[in-house]
């Protein structure tokens, strides 16, 4: 399981060798004289485990792999074979019952899976074959088939989009069932294949199937009438994944590239993680002790029996003679069977019933979580969700809580707060009262009352309007006559002469990140409205209610490494412009330095206020520059190998020497009762760590707002910034800092016994670390002091009341959780998050909690428990968890106590009956 998960993370490294070639529509191509139809697996999906034939043996095998079941089976067999004091029925019947119930349950689940599989496999799809439409069952699709998919249908396999019913060669899909993102994503047809799918003669060369949903590299050779084949690059934007649903597009045609078990969805198939609770582990430890007791009891009794028998007249008095068979068997064999008999006699010290009872207790107990009305959220009309009942009691033992920031501590409900243009601060107050929408705040920057020039303002707002990947939601009444509708709207605006607020509200935007929507809406308030993107043309309604048109040339997509995105557009006047927006740290080094200082103050102040800040920059591109960039990008996009790296190189090359225009601040509000919850958790002695991908200042302010850091908390920073000191290598500086902090927190800290008095006496420490430094700490593997670093780091962390890890990649989050999980004393960890980026840490921690938030359902699906709001965590841990822990602890301990009491008299009785394995109860008791 772990390896599969790792494979998923390191999907990039795990590149499969070679590529596959697909003949579109199975038409042989002129270039390849020898047409060998390649063998690929068919499109049948098999998620079921059993068939009718192998169900019994396979299921039994699986069940008896559980150590407890196996143990009882052995006992049962011993009872059947050897002449034992208790009848085989006493242990056979409960075992049979348990096995049967489990088998029925698993059989039913598998039957459901069969049904689901069948539904998918027998689904009718339309295949275009030699110009005809043929209805086929989904499982018969072969790689290379050209399929037609209608609106609201799910794709039966991974397809390359060839033709769309939309004019601009795009189609929209939702991948809600794949990654939980419910927004519409735009996919593009391969250029030049649009018209003639029927007669298209092409081959596709693409990589072997790999599980990463967002990576695809391929290229298409199109052959036309013996011309030189033209080459088109294929990327993830051309690939429609199995499981995704077609939206807002009447129909598309696509060629199957990966089918069946080779689709990305199938490769991502992952059974529910099997987490085991610590109580279960301690039950197993108990069992081991009890097994030792059992064996030693049996040994003692066997020895005593033979000692007793050695006295004359005891073994075989006249009233109690042995049978002939008994007399004849070997002494040692007799000893062995006696030993086994004693094992059977005492085996009720480890009863079958305990497993059943504990399972039942957990299963029924978990209902209380979903029944709790305090967890019911009226907004989403849902309560808590329990995905596993194995971990109920773990909730009460949590020592470390790892929480995501965005969407978990904060609402992920973005609101445009203010912006800063050319060093001047603008704060939006009320659009309807002021036509311009601008007013000056009384902020600290107001000493400079000068406004930025109008040009700069407009440039900034245009940048906001253009530099994004937002789509305008097509509302239903505009559905078909969208063109007219839009023109009407524009007309209406013109007549009104002014942007009417209700209309703004009406306009819906769809984007993958809520920040972008907030920015576009912010720009709208200032008078620049983004009207939409149509066939590579972006339309903007500016302040004077003119529609400005920009041709969208390139989108340099956002990625978490660059932490910025850019667009290259050409205005009507023929100017080529590059707009770039991104995190301050990634923008500042790439702009002219003289502009930075003015804006840096704003950004930092905004960040400490808890806002998310973005910087906006632009650049004029000359025609030569653009050509160079254009060709560079095209070339990189066609590359089959290392495409990402090549693209990145081009991006980095373009995004330099820009002019900084301004910065924006977007507020992300705290969740309801976030601070109270955090305080309650800390009050319960739980350490809260915030792991976020966000930048340090923002995260820090959130921490202050959540009262994770208090005013008297001394912050220890271990970030890239603190590592930079003149005249020293970063490694040395890291070493020094680690030692210093370690001294402060660990060595100078009062000894553990005074911890009770900690509340008022000792100093609270907060620790801040960022991703880059963390990887330095964790990856300094070549050095011999690696161990020290990791240890020091962990010790520092564990002595701080709260720890903030910012700029974390999802994998790093999981690394942190893993590190704490495996540290000394193996504390119980809990991860809570709402987005796909938290899944890794949710899976890694002992208990994973998903929040039914805005970022889709992936976290919820991978979690063990899902709650609607962060504030519910308090009751979940401190009330439910506590109760479950107390209950299960009582149950288990009582069971073992009971068993000991039950079997001890039996053991003592052996001294009185000549150690003859006589049971002094009737069989019904067992």
């Amino acid at each position, binding site marked *: 399981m772990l390896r599969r998960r790792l494979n998923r993370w390191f999907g990039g490294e795990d590149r499969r060798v070679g590529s596959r070639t697909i003949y579109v529509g199975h038409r042989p191509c002129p270039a390849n004289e020898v047409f060998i139809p390649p063998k690929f697996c068919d499109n049948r999906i098999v998620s079921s485990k059993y068939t009718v034939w192998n169900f019994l043996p396979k299921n039994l095998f699986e069940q008896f792999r559980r150590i407890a079941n196996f143990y009882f089976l052995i006992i049962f067999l011993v009872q059947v074979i050897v002449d034992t004091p208790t009848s085989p029925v006493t242990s056979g019947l409960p075992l049979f019952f348990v096995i049967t119930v489990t088998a029925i349950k698993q059989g039913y689940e598998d039957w459901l899976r069969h049904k689901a599989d069948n539904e998918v496999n027998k689904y009718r799809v339309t295949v275009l074959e030699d110009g005809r439409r043929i209805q086929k069952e989904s499982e018969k699709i072969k790689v290379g088939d050209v399929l037609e998919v209608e609106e609201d249908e799910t794709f039966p396999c991974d397809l390359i989009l060839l033709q769309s019913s939309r004019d601009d060669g795009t189609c929209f899909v939702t991948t809600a069932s794949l990654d939980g993102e419910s927004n519409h994503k735009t996919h593009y047809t391969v250029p030049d294949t649009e018209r003639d799918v029927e007669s298209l003669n092409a081959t596709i060369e693409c990589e072997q199937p790999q599980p990463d949903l967002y990576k695809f590299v391929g290229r298409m050779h199109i052959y036309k009438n013996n011309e030189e084949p033209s080459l088109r690059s294929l990327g993830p934007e051309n690939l429609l994944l199995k499981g995704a649903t077609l939206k807002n597009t009447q129909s598309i045609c696509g060629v199957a590239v990966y089918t069946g078990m080779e689709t990305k969805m199938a490769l991502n198939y992952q059974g529910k993680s099997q987490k085991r609770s610590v109580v279960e582990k301690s039950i197993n430890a108990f069992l081991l002790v009890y097994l030792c007791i059992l064996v030693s009891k049996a040994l003692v009794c066997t020895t005593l029996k033979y000692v007793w028998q050695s006295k004359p*007249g005891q073994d075989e*008095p006249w*009233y109690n003679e042995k049978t002939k068979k008994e007399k004849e068997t070997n002494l040692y064999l007799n000893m062995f069977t006696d030993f086994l008999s004693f094992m059977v006699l005492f085996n009720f010290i480890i009863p079958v019933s305990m497993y059943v009872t504990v399972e039942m207790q957990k299963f029924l107990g978990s209902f209380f979580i979903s029944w709790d*009305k305090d967890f019911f959220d009226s907004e989403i009309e849902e309560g808590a969700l329990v995905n596993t009942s194995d971990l109920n009691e773990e909730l009460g033992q949590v020592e470390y809580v790892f929480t995501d920031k965005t969407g978990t501590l904060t609402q992920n409900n973005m609101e445009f707060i203010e912006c800063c243009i050319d060093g001047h601060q603008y704060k939006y107050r009320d659009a309807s009262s002021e036509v311009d929408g601008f007013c000056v705040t009384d902020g600290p920057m107001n000493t400079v009352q000068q406004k930025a020039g109008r040009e700069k303002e407009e440039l900034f707002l245009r940048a906001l309007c253009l530099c994004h990947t937002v789509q305008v939601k097509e509302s239903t009444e505009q559905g078909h006559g969208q063109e007219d509708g839009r023109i009407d709207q524009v007309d209406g605006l013109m007549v009104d002469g002014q942007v009417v607020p209700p209309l703004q509200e009406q306009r819906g935007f769809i984007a993958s990140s809520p920040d972008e929507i907030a920015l576009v809406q912010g720009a709208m308030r200032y008078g620049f409205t983004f009207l939409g993107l149509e066939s590579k043309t972006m339309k903007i309604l500016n302040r004077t209610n003119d529609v400005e048109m920009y041709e969208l040339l390139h989108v340099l997509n956002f990625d978490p490494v660059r932490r910025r995105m850019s667009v290259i557009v050409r205005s009507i006047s023929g100017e080529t412009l590059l707009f770039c927006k991104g995190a301050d740290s990634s923008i500042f080094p790439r702009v002219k330095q003289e502009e930075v200082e003015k804006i840096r103050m704003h950004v930092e102040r905004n960040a400490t206020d808890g806002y998310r800040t973005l910087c906006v920059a632009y650049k004029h591109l000359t025609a030569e520059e653009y050509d160079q960039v254009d060709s560079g990008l095209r070339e990189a996009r066609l590359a089959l190998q290392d495409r990402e790296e090549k693209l990145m190189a081009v991006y980095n090359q373009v995004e330099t020497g820009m002019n900084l225009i301004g910065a924006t601040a977007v507020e992300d509000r705290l969740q309801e009762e976030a601070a109270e919850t955090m305080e309650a958790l800390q009050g319960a002695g739980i350490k809260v760590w915030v792991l976020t991908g966000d930048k340090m200042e923002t995260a820090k302010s959130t921490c202050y707002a959540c009262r994770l850091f208090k005013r008297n908390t001394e912050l220890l920073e271990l970030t890239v910034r603190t590592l930079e000191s003149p005249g020293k290598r970063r490694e040395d500086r890291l070493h020094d800092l680690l030692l210093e902090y370690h001294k402060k927190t660990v060595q100078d800290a009062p000894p553990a016994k005074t911890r009770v008095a900690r509340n008022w006496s000792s100093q609270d420490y907060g620790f801040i670390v960022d991703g880059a430094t963390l990887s330095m700490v964790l990856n300094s593997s070549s050095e011999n002091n690696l161990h020290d670093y990791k240890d020091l780091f962990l010790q520092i962390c564990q002595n701080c009341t709260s720890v903030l890890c910012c700029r974390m990649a999802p994998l790093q989050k999981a690394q942190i959780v893993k590190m704490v999980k495996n540290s000394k004393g193996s504390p119980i960890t809990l991860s809570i998050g709402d987005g796909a980026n938290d899944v890794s840490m949710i899976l890694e921690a002992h208990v994973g909690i998903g929040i039914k938030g805005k970022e889709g359902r992936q976290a919820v699906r991978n979690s063990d428990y899902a709650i609607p709001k962060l504030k519910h965590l308090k009751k979940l841990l401190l009330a439910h968890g506590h109760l479950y822990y107390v209950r299960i602890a009582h149950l288990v301990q009582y069971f073992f106590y009971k068993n000991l009491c039950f079997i001890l008299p039996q053991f003592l009785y052996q001294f009185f009956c000549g150690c003859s394995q006589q049971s*002094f109860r009737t069989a019904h008791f067992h």
Partner: protein
Amino acid sequence: MMASSYNAKEEDGHHSGASSGTGVSKNKKPDNTAFKQQRLPAWQPILTAGSVLPAFFVIGLIFIPIGIGLYVTSNNIKEFEIDYTGVSSDSPCYNCAKNFTWNTTEPCVCTVNFTLAQPFESNVFMYYGLSNFYQNHRRYVKSRDDRQLNGDLSALTDPSKECEPYRKSGDVSIAPCGAIANSLFNDTLVLYYVDSNNSKTEVPLVKKGIAWWTDKHVKFRNPAGNSNLTLAFQDTAKPVNWAKPVYELDPSDPDNNGFINEDFIVWMRTAALPTFRKLYRIIQKKSGATPTLPNGNYMLNITYNYPVLSFDGRKRMILSTISWMGGKNPFLGIAYITVGSICFFLGVVLLIIHHKYDNRNTSADIPS
């Protein structure tokens, strides 16, 4: 992620099922019932000095009187026990014990004299006791056929395998089969009262009413179909160590013969410990004021048939009266008195500790 599609379907299914089931109410809000919200009343004792100390005293004060009562009752029960095994050379049965052989036709009789210092009032129970006799050995315990003893005709001629090696004698199956039946206690005890002028009076011993009612009437039955027991058992052999067949256990009383002979039934109910006693006879209370067994000299006549010396066993004869709490059992009373005293003592100690070291303010009551 096929699981996801499967899950989605499952969820959908659930949803539709639930909504159709509950009808119009689409509200999934959990019910506000005491059970579902875990508000059922519950009580858990919090152990404080205020509750523990009185509890100790109360337990002590209740247990000590009970214990005293039990002890006194037990002491009032009269019991007399005499070992007649004949181990030492001066004991009357020494010769019988020493010269025992299985194949004698002439029974060996010995007489033991004893004196009762106190008279035994009301019904007196006469027991025989055996020591170091492992009636609880597994091989022994299971060596019986309950179906045969219940009168099952097929089991009569074909006893269960469990009876080995006492299942068949030659080709004829044994009735009753098994080790337990085979080792039936067969000493005969007769009690005489020797009055002051040395004349012997036989004490009347009642041999019925000594077995459990269920054993006598449910578990043990003679083979059906033939009122003549001799005929009923005609295809069977007597147990190896028996002197006479089962239908001659008590020829005088057909209701006490065969499998339903009460001595036999009592023996068949195996003892739990290697030292045990079994009820042999009952001496009924006499009418009037005369005690059942007046104090004085007695003579016990023993027909010595049962060998125990080979396994270092002992045989005893016990006379005992009973009370409402059964036979003589001083242990229960002592246990009650001990536990009660310990509780009381602990109560006192804790009270002293509580008084001496309780330096809390009365107002700050920490419930821990």
